[in-house]
Every structure is written in C-alpha cells, then in structure tokens.
C-alpha cells in the first residue's frame, strides 16, 4: 500500500504520482467492439495530459465550470481529471435527465464547456443552447451520427487531444507549464460540484473540495484495506457522489483499476468477464439480481428447482454464521460446501461475483431478506450510510459486525449525534463547502460549528453500537391515534417480494395505513406466462384480479410480520391497490437514483388516495406522463382496491402474558 503523502492533495497530482510509481499497472479498462482495452497509469497520464492541454487551448481556465454528460467511459473520467489539472471544476450531470432538468443545472452551474458522450447528448445540449449563453465548445467522444453536424462549436475528443499533443511536441516549455499548473492546485480548491437529485424541489449543487473527497477516500480505503489490486466496474451515474468517490477518487488514491462496461445493458456480462473484487451498489441492484435468479429458477426443471431451493435453505440457515466465523456443526458445513460447489458459486459466477471480496449497499435501506440472502451465499455484503454532503461516508459496517437493520459505526474521522427530534447529524473532514450559489440552503443544513443535518431519523442501537435509520425525518409520522408510522419501513418489507417493485405507504394523520403498489413486470410477467394469463400492457397486468390475489398474499404476510413488532403493529396495512403505471423519474415520481418522492406521488394520485380512505372498491384516475424527449401524454385507468385483514398485536400479548 502507498504511504500517505500529504503533498498529494489533488487528483491530477495523484495521477502523475501513480504514473511514476505504478506506471505499468492497469488504471482503466473499457470494452469496445467486443474487446477489452487497457490503459496503464502511465498511458492514462499521457491521455489526460494531452486532453488537458487541448482544453486549455479551447479556453478552459482556472475557476471555470465544465460539464460531463454521458455513461461511464474512460474519456469522460479523463475529462474530469484533465479539467481539474487546469483548476477548472467538473459538474457531471445525469445523462438521462430530461432537457428541462439538465438545462437548469447547466445554467445554474454556469458551465462554459461540455464534454459529452455521443449524438444523443449533443442533440440535447444543442437544443438548450439558447438558454445557456455562457456555454462555449462542445466536446464529444463517440463520432457516430455527428459527421454532418455544424462543427463550428463541436469538436471530437480525439481532436482536442491532437491539439494538446501538437502543443507538447512543438513547445518544450509546454509540459513544464502544465505541470506547474497542476502544482498550483490545492487541497482546499473545489474538486467537483455534484447536483443532488433531491427528494424535494430543484437540485442543489453540492460543492466538494479536494480535501473533502481525498481524505474521505483515504479513510475508506484504509477502513476496508483497498489497494491497487482491486478491480471495480463503473456503471452508476457519474453525477452520483458514490461513483465519483468510488470509481474516481478512491481509484486514484489507492491505485486500483476501474473497468468501464461496453454499454449500460452489458454490465452483468462485463462484470462476469472482469470478476470485480469490490462493489458498491444501491439495494435495487441486489434486488434485481435476486429477482432475476428467482425468476430463472422458476423456469428451470423440477430437479434443478428442488436442488436450488434446498441449498438456498441450507445457506439461509448456516451461510451467515459461517461467514461471521461462528460455531457451526460439521454436517452443516459439509452441506454448505456441497451447496457452494453446485449452487452458490455458479449463481455468483453468473453475475460476476466470484472474486468479490467486499460489497456495499447504500443509498437506501435494503430489505433484510435480500441482504441476508447475499450474505448467506457467502458474499461479504455490508451496509453503508452516506450523503453527497459528506463525500459519501457517514457510517459503515466493519467486517464481522454486520446486521441487516443497521448501517454501521461512524466512519474514520466522522462524529455523529442525534438531535432531540431524532434526526441524525454528523461532522467530518468530508463535510461539503456549501451549496453552489445558495447560502440560505447551506445554512439550513449545516450549523456554524460544522454539523450537518442529514434529514434522516435514526438512533444509535444500544445492542450493537451501530446507527439505525428508520426513515426520512420528515416522513416519519403518526396515525390519528398516535401510532408511529414509518412509511419506508413498511415499504421495504413489501419490496422484498420479487413481485413488488415499489410500494408507497400512506397513513400520516389518517386513521389507518394504506399502500399503493407497483408490480415488477419481469417477475409477474414470468408468472403470467407460466399460468396462461394473457395481458397486453403493464396496465392490464397490474389490474388482473389474479395478480391482486398474489399481492394480497404478500400484504398479508407483511401484516403478520408487523404484528410481531410492538412499535409497528398498529401500522398494519388495511387497504391496498396496484398502480396502473410504473413510477418513473421522468414524471417526477422517483428521483434519478430511483428513490420515491412520496409527497409528490400522493398529490399526483390523490383520487386514488381518497378512494383508499372513503371505502370505495374502485377508483378512476387520469395521469399525465412525460416521455424522455419532454412531450406529454395521458393515461386513464380504473383501479381496484382490496381490503386486508389485520392481526392482533402479538408482541403486546406476550408482554401481558408474562
């Protein structure tokens, strides 16, 4: 492992350092036209430097903001570092954002230059160019389809590099000047502005310095002993702080290799080819893989299915104990070993997880059953709690202290406290400088002595000493009778079922709890196929009475499990419905990181919510939908509502009996 070197306080400095010290080791890979291409640290320095000098030639200078739009490609990562070498600040944005959202961010950040992936993004930026008077040149990576465009403004990535290389070759002082520019960079300089998708209102630009991100990365690497031998795959949005830290800053600091997939939909195959050792993903990804496995097994032959179910049972019973080094009978170990050979390893290999040393889930609470499943399979899956405002890390679970319902102990150098209202606050070297051009919001979130309000309600678990997050602080409410109502807690219980993709719980200041459910089209569709249920659309499938029966079973099981927990037992689900359309970020129902925007959903589907509480058995609704290009359509539906049985509070009874 590298020595901590205080003079390394910016990423371009790390790049030069790595090129010198581990120059021949792989820094990045990218699969293109079916072939993995590798760049060593030395080669990457050459690429970044050429681009950086080319950018300077295009007029990018210290303090300028420039944007990165596209999926995870080496050149886009290089562009971030290349700009930072000049003292400019990258503002990566979500590539799938609708035009309006993107125009707001680019305008607010006052970007002067854009580096984008391909024609799709070029079109988007050109369309909003009138609203962005400061925006100058537009650099693109993928040439396809752009041949006939007006190139007065556009310039290909390789051409910018060619300009840089020509400067370097023609002028002996060029290299020294560039390196002097890098040396001018300081730890306290802005490293990046990341716009958070925010569960309410317009996005806010979180300003992070080099110190913020690099110290956090150093701590994280030390905490999990990450070194230059790690292989990771970069597939999460580049505008997300998780990707920025994990696929960029931590990689530069530790010197490990980042692999870029061929296309967004080839990640699973690409991961299988690389065999990543370290992974970082929102719960959704683990859920999807599990759903996919369950669905495929349901289609397998009877023998395979039985064997799978049996060994998964073995794993659920013993796997976690073996992983945590507890005492386990020899027979169980033997069974587990057989299961590993025939089931666990093949399943893991299918998803490229054979070499995985460590995997994190973060961004949102993971269903305990999903979490346990992966741990039972022998994957060291851990929880992490973080925020953009913290340069990711607030808490993380140390090896061997893993619980399904906690998010870990404070990360190195992080302090935590809980406010009187139950909100979690933290203070750390990763704490952001402020929201860009928004001192008011900054003051709301960060106290003068450096504590940051997370907006999450939680408590420190006395048994484990780890932090537990219940819900968003503003979302935790009470029913009319005063019973505690934590919507996310109920939703997560529902989302464990592969058939349920999303759930929205309603109940604050009402008499009882109701939920609106999104079915998972893959899982339910596969069930429909096997059971000769004919459907033409998502809407039709969602409205099918037999699908309702399945969901009703799940809701019933959730009620039963809620009844076992004294605090939550009063919040059992009385009525539910299945939504006629999938919740979608384009309609503002989910954030870009796929989190529910509950308030907005409840407003939007208010006729349905009303029907849930006035006792009717169906409800009519008309919903406006927005397509990716911004134009709008309308869908109408009649949605059925089901009543559910609730269970007496079992936990309470036991207390009374005792």
């Amino acid at each position: 492992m590298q020595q901590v070197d205080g003079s390394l306080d910016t990423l371009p400095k790390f790049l030069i350092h790595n090129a010198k010290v581990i120059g021949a080791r792989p820094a990045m890979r990218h699969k293109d036209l079916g072939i993995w291409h590798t760049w060593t640290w030395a080669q990457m320095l050459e690429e970044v430097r050429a681009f950086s000098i080319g950018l300077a030639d295009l007029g990018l200078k210290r303090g300028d903001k420039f944007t990165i739009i596209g999926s995870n490609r080496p050149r886009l990562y290089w562009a971030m570092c290349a700009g930072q070498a000049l003292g400019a600040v990258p503002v990566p944005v979500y590539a799938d954002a609708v035009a309006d959202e993107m125009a707001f961010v680019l305008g607010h950040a006052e970007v002067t230059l854009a580096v984008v992936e391909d024609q799709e993004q070029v079109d988007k930026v050109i369309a909003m160019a009138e609203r962005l008077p400061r925006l100058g040149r537009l650099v693109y990576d993928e040439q396809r389809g752009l041949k006939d465009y007006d190139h007065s403004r556009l310039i290909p990535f390789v051409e910018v590099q060619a300009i840089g290389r020509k400067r370097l070759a023609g002028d002996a002082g060029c290299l020294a000047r560039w390196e002097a520019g890098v040396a001018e960079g300081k730890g306290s300089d802005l490293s990046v502005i990341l716009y958070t998708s925010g569960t309410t209102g317009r996005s806010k630009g979180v300003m992070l310095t080099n110190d913020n991100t690099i110290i956090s990365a150093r701590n994280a690497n030390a905490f999990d002993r990450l070194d230059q031998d790690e292989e990771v795959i970069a597939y999460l949005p580049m505008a997300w702080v998780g990707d920025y830290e994990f696929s960029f800053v931590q990689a530069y600091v530790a010197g490990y290799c980042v692999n870029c997939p061929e296309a967004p939909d080839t990640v699973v195959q690409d991961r299988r080819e690389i065999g990543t050792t370290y992974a970082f993903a929102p719960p959704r990804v683990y859920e999807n893989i599990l759903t996919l496995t369950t669905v495929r097994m349901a289609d397998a032959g009877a023998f395979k299915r039985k064997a799978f179910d049996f060994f998964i049972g073995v794993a659920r019973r013993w796997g976690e104990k073996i992983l945590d080094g507890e005492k386990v009978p020899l027979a169980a170990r033997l069974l587990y070993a057989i299961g590993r050979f025939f089931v666990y390893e093949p399943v893991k290999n299918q998803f490229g997880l054979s070499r995985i040393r460590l995997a994190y889930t973060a961004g949102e609470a993971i269903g305990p059953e999903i979490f346990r499943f992966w741990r039972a399979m022998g994957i060291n899956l851990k929880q992490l709690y973080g925020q953009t405002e913290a340069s990711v890390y607030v808490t993380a679970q140390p090896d061997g202290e893993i619980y399904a319902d906690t998010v870990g102990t404070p990360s190195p150098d992080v302090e935590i406290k809980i406010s009187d209202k139950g909100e979690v606050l933290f203070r750390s070297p990763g704490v952001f400088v402020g929201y860009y051009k928004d001192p008011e919001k900054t003051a709301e979130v960060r106290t003068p002595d450096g504590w940051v309000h997370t907006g999450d309600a939680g408590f420190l678990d006395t048994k484990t000493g780890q932090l537990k997050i219940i819900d968003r602080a503003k979302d935790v409410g009470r029913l009319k009778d005063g019973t505690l109502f934590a919507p996310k807690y109920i939703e997560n219980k529902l989302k464990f079922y592969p058939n349920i993709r999303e759930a929205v719980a309603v109940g604050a200041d009402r008499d009882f709890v109701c939920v609106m459910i999104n079915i998972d089209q893959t899982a339910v569709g596969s069930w429909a196929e096997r059971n000769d249920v004919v459907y033409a659309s998502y809407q039709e499938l969602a409205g099918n009475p037999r699908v309702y029966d399945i969901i009703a079973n799940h809701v019933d099981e959730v009620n039963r499990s809620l009844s076992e927990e004294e605090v939550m037992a009063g919040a059992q689900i009385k009525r539910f419905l299945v939504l006629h359309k999938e919740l979608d970020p384009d309609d503002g129902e989910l954030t870009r990181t796929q989190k529910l925007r509950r308030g907005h959903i409840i407003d939007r589907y208010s006729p349905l919510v009303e029907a849930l509480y006035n006792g009717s058995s169906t409800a009519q609704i008309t919903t406006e939908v927005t397509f990716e290009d911004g134009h709008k359509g309308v869908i109408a539906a009649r949605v059925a509502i089901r009543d559910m049985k609730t269970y007496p509070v079992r936990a309470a009874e036991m207390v009374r009996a005792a």
Partner: protein
Amino acid sequence: MRAPSSGDAALSEVLLAVEEVSLSFGGVRALTGVSFDIRKGEIRAIIGPNGAGKTSMLNVVNGFYQPQSGRITFKGKVRTSMRPYAAAAGGIARTFQNLALFRGMTTLDNILAGRALKMHRGFFWQLIRQGPALAEEVEHRRRVEEIIDFLEIAAIRKIPVGRLPYGLQKRVELGRALAMEPDLLLLDEPMAGMNLEEKEDMSRFIIDVNQQYGTTIALIEHDMGVVMDLSDRVVVLDYGRKIADSTPDEVRKDENVIRAYLGQPHGVSA
C-alpha cells in the same frame, strides 16, 4: 421526417430496374407486367394489400423466383432472371418476413454467417486458422462487431438467437444482412409483429443504415405510418399489377390506391 427526399433521389442513377416482369405459378398470376426502378441511395417502399405480390416481387429481385418474362437490370447488367447466389454476390442482401436465422447459433455467429461470401481463404486455411486466414477472420470479426455496436445488441452477443424476443431476432437478421455490406438491402416486413417502441427503434436503424452506410433499401411494409415516414418513393401493387408509383404524399391521395385498400370488388371497374 426525412430531409433528403425524392429531390436528390431523382437525380441519382438507377441501381436496379425491373421491366415488364410477369410471374405465374401454374394458373395463378402473381405478377403481371410490373416495371419500376430503385435509385441509388433511396429508400423505396413496396406496398399493397395482402396477396398483392409484394414478396413475390422481392423474391424475383433477389433471384429466388424466376419470372416467365421481363428483364431485370442491376448495376447496369441486364438479365432475364437472377440466381440467389449471384444476387448475393452482386450485393443484394435481404431479410425475411418470417425470420430465417440459425436459431441454435449465437447472435455473433449468425451475423458472422453473413460474411460467408466475403471469406476468401479456403476451407483448410480456415481450419488451420493461421497467418492470412487468422488475419482475415480478425477482420471479419471486427466488421461484425461494428454492426453489433451499430445495432446496439452488444448485450445479446453470445446468446443463442432462439432465446431472444422477436423484435431482437429481427434486429439480428438485419445485422446479418448488413454483414454482407450490400449495395441493395431488401427488407420484407421489418416491423411485422413489433410493438410501437420496437417499430420506432427499427425505423431509426433503417434510416441510419441508409444515411451512414449509404445503402439503398427496398422495403415491404404494412404500417402506413412507417412507410410514409421512411420512404422516398413508393410503388403500390394490387393483384400483381402496379397501380401507383410516386412519392408518399401523392400515393396517399391516389384514387386507385385508396380503392385497392378499401377493397372494392376486383374487376368491377375494369
């Protein structure tokens, strides 16, 4: 939708012309004295009600059927009929109404099969897989990978096509036809059985093929919206005869075409 329209197509040279082609199976007349041409670089649609002779026409063009009379001129060479092999070697590729893929083979292998005519090394060379044979194979693979990238099917590269949904199989078939680097691409109902989204994808690929590779395209299609959006010129067949041949806009207004599609009893007007 399409900017480059019949204006420039009218100026460019004729790639393929059929003149007075007639085809019959026993007593059934499939085509009667049909003439039209396809100009270099255009997208040419062939439309008509069911049984109008559209697929027969494509089969005549690529040598699958031998017409009883008439002439076909392709790249300036006149013949009374074509052989499928000669058509393929001459630069005519096609896709089929009911997919004709190797279902047990992967996407990659299916598309690679489209390169068969371009393989110059003999059987033994390919077995040895050394030197020039290897170089040739690498080159073919590169071309195939470009097509995979172009059609955005990297995720299914190694999946046997039999397991793919219909819309993707159609895309693989288009890929295989493209692998031949054709001068003329014949598409027999490329959108049949697709949902709206798949149709939009396929339309985009057809336009991209036409614009980027400069491939001339003749397509049969039932979806009028697609035909009107995509094509530069449309020829309309009914009961084996040509009843109209013009731009999409004019064809749409044509009395004969409207009558053919509304299904007036045949022979009454004659």
